[in-house]
């Protein structure tokens, strides 16, 4: 076999890299041209992308399916309320809150990561239900009546809207960059090894629990940021809305449809979810039935999601986090079908 060249990207991915930078720049100046309603909707989209990417980091890369991630969403909003009430600047409290959520998730991880599969999934749901009940006990929250992030009202409405937009855009870009860097670095190799076969990964010296814990805390932090940002856009805090399992249902929908375990898939899924919500969100209960049914169908018929299927079929890599082996002599078929077994192995390693 001739010497292969290890490459970490393709021509398309290098173009995509510039594309991403251009899109973020464009989004940063977009509020100049968008209506107030459109700015709000775009803010929601950024939050959905964070949620999808974080759930995907946990489930798609860490192999940890949780149906209790709403606990961090709710806590992100709750701590922000508490901090703002204590006199901290409301915008600052959004991010301090997320840091606290990340810190809280650490002891939870010590305990929950010892559970496996379904037990972890539903165990997290118990944690979420318990946390919801405990937050209700806080007098400041007034039970299910809830409260508001009043201190945000001192800012002018349009200035507030654009600031939250930029904060959401910045948070999304930063969190995606962190995740991308993590997956591309040496931890990324460990993460993908765990995703593909946990026991085998452990046997070659991958620190399974430590890596999973890192993903768990990152996901908690990211979802905490989303919860706090959501609070900033909607002002009111009702525990029932924020600790609703519906948030996890959205995350699962986005990731399943987009492509679980692919970096691009979560973003695509968030975009699709955003469009569906924009068009059919008014359909009420049928919209929810449709979401559940779509998730069901994807998990049965297309478990790799849209991006995963496209990637496998056409060998696409826009934001590559894995490694590819390209033979020095001949160009290799991107799908890896004609490649020798050694190459096939590397090619099939999904990014």
């Amino acid at each position: 076999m001739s010497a292969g060249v290890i490459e970490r990207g393709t021509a398309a991915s290098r173009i995509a890299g510039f594309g991403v930078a251009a899109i973020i720049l464009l989004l940063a100046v977009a509020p100049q041209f968008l209506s107030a309603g459109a700015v709000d909707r775009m803010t929601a989209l950024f939050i959905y992308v964070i949620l999808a990417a974080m759930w995907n980091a946990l489930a798609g890369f860490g192999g940890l399916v949780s149906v209790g991630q709403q606990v961090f969403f709710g806590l992100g909003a709750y701590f922000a309320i508490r901090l703002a009430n204590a006199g901290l600047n409301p915008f600052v409290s959004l991010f301090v809150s997320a840091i606290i959520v990340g810190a809280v998730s650490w002891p939870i991880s010590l305990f929950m990561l010892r559970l496996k599969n379904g037990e972890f999934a539903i165990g997290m749901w118990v944690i979420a239900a318990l946390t919801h009940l405990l937050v209700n006990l806080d007098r400041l929250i007034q039970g299910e009546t809830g409260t508001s992030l009043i201190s945000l009202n001192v800012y002018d409405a349009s200035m507030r809207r654009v600031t939250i937009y930029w904060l959401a855009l910045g948070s999304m870009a930063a969190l995606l960059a962190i995740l991308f860097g993590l997956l591309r670095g040496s931890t990324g190799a460990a993460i993908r090894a765990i995703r593909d076969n946990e026991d085998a990964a452990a046997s070659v010296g991958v620190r399974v629990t430590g890596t999973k814990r890192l993903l768990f805390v990152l996901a908690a932090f990211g979802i905490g940021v989303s919860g706090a940002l959501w609070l900033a856009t909607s002002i009111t805090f009702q525990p029932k809305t924020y600790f609703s399992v519906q948030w996890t249902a959205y995350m699962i929908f986005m990731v399943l449809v987009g492509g679980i375990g692919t970096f691009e898939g979560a973003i695509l899924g968030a975009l699709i979810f955003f469009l569906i919500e924009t068009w059919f969100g008014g359909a009420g209960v049928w919209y929810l039935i449709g979401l559940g049914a779509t998730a069901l169908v994807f998990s049965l018929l297309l478990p790799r999601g849209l991006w995963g299927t496209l990637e496998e079929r056409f060998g696409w890599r826009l934001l590559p986090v894995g490694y590819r082996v390209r033979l020095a002599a001949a160009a290799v078929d991107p799908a890896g079908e004609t490649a020798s077994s050694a190459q096939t192995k590397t090619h099939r390693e999904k990014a």
Partner: protein
Amino acid sequence: MMNQIVQGVLLGGYYALIACGLSFMFSVMRIINLAHGSLAVLSAFALWLLASRFHIPPFLGLLVVLPLMAVIGWALQRFLLERSARGGALLPILTTFGLAIVIDNVLFEQFGADTRSLAPFIGSLSYDSWEWPGSIYVGKLAVIIFIAAVLLLGGLQLFLTRTGLGRSIRATSEDPDTAGLVGVDARRANAVAAAIAMVTVGLAGAFLGMRATFDPYAGATQLLFAFEAAVIGGAGSLWGTLIGGIVLALAQTLGATVHPQGFLIGGHLAFLIVLFIRLYTSGLGLRGLLGLASGKAS
């Protein structure tokens, strides 16, 4: 105090009833069905529909609903779980979660947000009680539910150990491939097990409707109760589920006496404490926690 303990133990019978289907399916197929609670609520709504629309009393309605639940269980295994289980351990979680969302919202679409109860259709049974020594009043319905739970768990135990079908289900749960080698039809065994599990869910749904109220989104709470009781009961025989249910109910009762909103908190805390102790003393993984009927039932 004595009164509360008695009520707690009786409530534990209900939790054992709803938990036994969950742990049974887990022990056979290694799948935790997230639509478990929603299916129980579905059964309660089916009975409610029969009673209010066609004047069929709930206990009679069970003759219609339980076979229906068995068919649903069989179909669930054949068309959803079997397929998604091939994609690894994580997919069934997502599949059944999607199913739960569909069931909850279809029920909401059909029946609206009103809370319902089967209590008006069972006559005086819903409030009749016996007086026990020490002026403890126990509801007849609560006693019936407890007895039903004991009979069901005992029946399931006998079925698994004494019948050919039960033995083939246990063989499949131990090792489907080897069971196939000795002529056990693993697909059939799993489908039968799912059907049986759904019958128990149907029964639990009926009692849920009789002893309390329910609404289209009540499934999630029931799922958590079932899961907590199953995990607290933990390793051992199916009887562990009964103990788990009783512990959960007693913890809730205790929580309620400490704080007006402490009922659910008490249950969740008990679950976490038991989990904590279990994880750090025995070092058992998932099989140890929920590893029920399969090997140890014999």
